[in-house]
């Protein structure tokens, strides 16, 4: 009887150690994915800012102002809602007339799409594991906040596939 209890305890402990290692690893993955996403968003904002400054007359004062405003808002979102601010910027960038939408800007938008999917993927894996009965019962990582999804419309059906990835 005592032996059985011991065996169960050892197995439980091994499982907990293993699960903690998974959670720790996932935490690292979420952090790295978030860094990549921030990097991609920052790069897009920089490129959009450059367009707003350098092509102000081609764009017209109204649109150039709107774009510059969206860039500023994305960098320092008012009300703290980064997703809304990035959405607004993304929409303006996609609506830029063709000669102003440099290939780098399309590429930056595409990389935002990649980074966002990888980040959300990491968040999804973390949330799935945290919500399983085992980790919840043992309260593994229970005090840490659940990572949040980052949901923006990047206008890229292409990344989730309509045949070849056209850089929209």
């Amino acid at each position, binding site marked *: 009887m005592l032996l059985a209890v011991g065996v169960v305890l050892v197995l439980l402990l091994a499982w907990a150690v*293993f699960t903690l290692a998974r959670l720790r690893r996932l935490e690292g993955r979420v952090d*790295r994915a978030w860094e990549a996403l921030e990097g991609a968003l920052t790069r897009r904002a920089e490129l959009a800012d450059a367009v707003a400054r350098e092509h102000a007359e081609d764009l017209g004062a109204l649109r150039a102002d709107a774009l510059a405003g969206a860039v500023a808002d994305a960098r320092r979102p008012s009300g703290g809602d980064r997703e809304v601010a990035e959405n607004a910027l993304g929409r303006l960038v996609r609506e830029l007339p063709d000669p102003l939408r440099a290939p780098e800007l399309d590429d930056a938008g595409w990389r935002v799409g*990649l980074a966002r999917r990888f980040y959300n993927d990491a968040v999804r*894996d973390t949330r799935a*594991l945290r919500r399983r009965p085992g980790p919840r019962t043992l309260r593994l990582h229970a005090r840490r906040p659940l990572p949040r999804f980052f949901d923006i419309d990047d206008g890229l059906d292409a990344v*989730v*596939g309509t045949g070849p*990835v056209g850089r929209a």
Partner: protein
Amino acid sequence: MRVGLVCPYNWDVPGGVQYHVRDLAGTLRGMGHEVDVLTPAEQEESLPAGATWAGRAIPIPYNGSMASWQFGVLSAARTRRWLREGHFDVVHVHEPAPPSVALLVCMIADGPIVATFHAASVRSKWLAAWGPVVRPWLERIAGRIAVSDFARRLQVEHLGGDAVVIPNGVQVAAFAAGPRLPAAEHDGPTVGFLGRYDEPRKGLPVLLEAMRTVVRELPGARLLVAGRGDPDELRALVGPDLEPAVVLLGELAEDEKAAFLRTVDVYCAPNLMGESFGVVLVEAMAAGAPVVAADLDAFARVLADGTAGVLVRRGDATALARVLVDLLGDPDRRAELTAAGRERARDFDWATLAAQVVAVYETVVPAGGGEVTAHGADEDPLPVEPVPTRTEGFLPRWLRRS
């Protein structure tokens, strides 16, 4: 960038995943990246330079096709050594879910891992049961790629998690120009079939049935069958009435395959099920062969919903016969399809796709860099995760294999 590619299937056995890895490696090297491939092979000597042998994988029939099994202490040791000596910025595994060297890399590697999912069969009870078992290791993958929407859907449904879609590529230039295949030359109209012809899902019986009508209408027509399989089985399938109209070319080398596709009047893919993507359709289009294919979702997508080739209801020999007869008798329509196909093939050129794969690498590699390492018994006195070894302990001895 230093990239470690991992192919789970025997390198010296022809297959879509192997070609994918080979071409991706070649294209990446052409772009100036350093690439090493870890792969099993039946013969170690068959590996080219820039590839590391991971032992032999045991082929197991799975889902109407072949999968491979390779999972053991010796394979793990080889994998660990490869990871330690490679100093990779990123490792890119292919088809990591089955118990193969790709899964071993996911278990052992410590650092940025990218994975490409190839399979696309939608009803897979095996995967539904297996998914949760391998989840702790697949969870370490930082960036997931699927080669098609269907591969992505499978990944979402059974393994949990999203993937970006980067389709299979083709070396378009290698198919577009070159010699024709003398063995496939024929005075009358020819239809080409390429693939493992004894696999039912490839649909050769449907095409043979259709050929009976085609030969009645166009007596000089020939069906050229290229690929691996049992010739006797094929002869039994063809039957005496059709035998004069069917030519078996056997297995073709890569350059012969391109020559074959350049020679045939029509390329036909009558597959019934289970195709993830259909590289061969892109190859045929790149080689300028008009394509007639079953209306599998994957094929419809590659053929741009039937604008770059003709789609026929799968398994429908009558409809297939009608399309083939029409097409073989209409050179103008064939020329139209050839032009549309060449245009479409360019979307799948490896140069385009490898650049997208590199963007994925750059997204998962941390800004400061830091190479992939291996964790495991021989250097860490206190392994943080005892489980990889424990899992191997679960396998009966006879299943362990180098």
